[in-house]
């Protein structure tokens, strides 16, 4: 075990891990995040807490993580390189770890253009791979970026994202390899709708033996409606929603579309359970957190292991 992370323990035990996520509030009262996390209690192993997701200002990820930690749950600190330089990021990591937060996800972050502060400077002192490397150096070498030793280095279980569907496809496995080389421990993937393409990517991952070096959690997002399917297909960069999925969603009446969306998600989970190298699922039910417990249950992923 590299860390105290519960997620690491679940994964090391060889059982399918389950994670989900919570977006912090756009205000200074934490009730909402506590409420959302409560829903997930007992159904997931860890909860991602987003960092100014889609470049919109929210309560900081690390302070939200503290609330969740205080509830006895396991938060995953998300960190984007867009908003802070390496000094700020290292200090945040030290602080978070001091509060018992031992799992994090390293991202570059959505471009400010997409959020509510398009006029803000994107910092991008590091990219996500360099961030992974930085966290690993802090943990394993006990060094700051500047080279000084860290007194009591933070032992973070290091995650990163992967999008098997973005272009150029041929680079996607190589990019994972670079993250592995940088020292990533686990991967949460982009939402999977095009299962064939995902499997093709996994094939590449296995060919290079990467599945032996990193845990992969497949991203699952149920679709609420055909409208959402179309939006994801056409408007969200890097998202691959095949026509059949949209067709299937639109083939049922409006009131049954939500259930159809969940069915699709469950079928996907079922199929991916059999794919070598998939070690768990990251279920993101956007503004639909209440559905996660039901999904985990129907997917046969209960009870969660106690480690």
């Amino acid at each position, binding site marked *: 075990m590299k860390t105290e992370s519960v997620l690491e323990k679940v994964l090391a035990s060889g059982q399918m891990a389950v994670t989900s996520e919570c977006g912090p509030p756009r205000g200074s009262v934490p009730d909402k995040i506590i409420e959302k996390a409560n829903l997930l209690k007992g159904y997931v192993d860890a909860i991602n807490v987003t960092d100014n997701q889609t470049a919109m200002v929210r309560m900081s990820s690390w302070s939200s993580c503290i609330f969740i930690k205080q509830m006895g749950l396991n938060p995953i600190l998300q960190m984007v390189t867009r908003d802070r330089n390496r000094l700020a990021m290292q200090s945040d990591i030290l602080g978070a770890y001091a509060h018992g937060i031992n799992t994090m996800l390293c991202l570059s*972050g*959505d471009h400010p253009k*997409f959020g509510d502060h398009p006029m803000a400077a*994107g910092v991008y002192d590091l990219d996500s791979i360099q961030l992974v490397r930085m966290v690993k150096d802090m943990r394993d070498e006990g060094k700051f970026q500047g080279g000084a030793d860290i007194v009591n280095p933070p032992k973070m279980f290091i995650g990163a994202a992967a999008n098997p569907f973005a*272009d*150029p496809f041929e*680079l996607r496995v*190589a*990019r994972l390899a670079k993250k592995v080389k940088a020292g990533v421990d686990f991967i949460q993937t982009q939402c999977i709708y095009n299962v064939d393409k995902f499997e093709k990517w996994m094939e590449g991952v296995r060919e290079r033996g990467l599945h032996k070096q990193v845990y992969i959690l497949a991203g699952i997002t149920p679709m609420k409606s055909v409208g959402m399917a179309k939006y994801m297909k056409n408007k969200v960069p890097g998202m691959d929603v095949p026509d059949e999925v949209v067709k299937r969603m639109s083939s049922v009446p409006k009131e049954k579309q939500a259930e159809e969306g969940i069915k699709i998600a469950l079928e996907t989970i079922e199929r991916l359970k059999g794919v070598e190298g998939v070690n768990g699922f990251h279920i993101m039910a956007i503004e639909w957190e209440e559905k996660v417990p039901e999904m985990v249950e129907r997917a046969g992923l209960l009870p969660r292991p106690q480690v």
Partner: protein
Amino acid sequence: MITAERKPLSELVECVRPYGRILLLGCNECVTVCAAGGRKEVGLLASSLKMAFSKDGKNLDIKEITLERQCDPEYVEELAPHMGEAEAVLSMACGCGVQEVARRFMDKPVFPAVNTKFMGASERQGIWSERCAGCGDCVLGITGGICPIARCSKQLMNGPCGGSSGGKCEVDAEMDCAWQLIWDRLKALGLEKRYEENMPAKDWRPGRGAGPRKIIREDLAR
């Protein structure tokens, strides 16, 4: 080359409003090449400003001078004989030129007439795009001749983000994904392996990281 774009006329009109005699400067280098501040643009701006005031009954006196290069003191010195009459200077040169004129003529208000944009190349007639961020530590040799710092919206050093789609950047569907270009070029060069190497966190000191920069060529400067 350095590229620039003329400021909105309304802003320029307000700049010169307090004055009656203006020296309007052009530069025959970069801003001429990018059609922002050469002799022709100077003429157009002079004419525009004169009309903008003359319609309100004010006779604005504008003298137009285009220097060979406004970022060299010797050329800027040529302005000395004309400076006496001018109440203010409006310069269509890049920020370098504007500052050089301001430095030389301490007592004259100097206004920029263009917004200096970036170091770029001309794609074709009338279209320029950013190519270099002046980071001071060129990586083009390892990125297939395409700069990820200047041309990737997130200046990512290790490959395309998840928003790269069909060779385009998620920030603007018209913008090429720099990493797609880099990858294509590496492939063409048979250097795919190079992509596998992790580029470490960049040292920004050769860029603006260590404050305003200076180059001293000992052999020339001494």
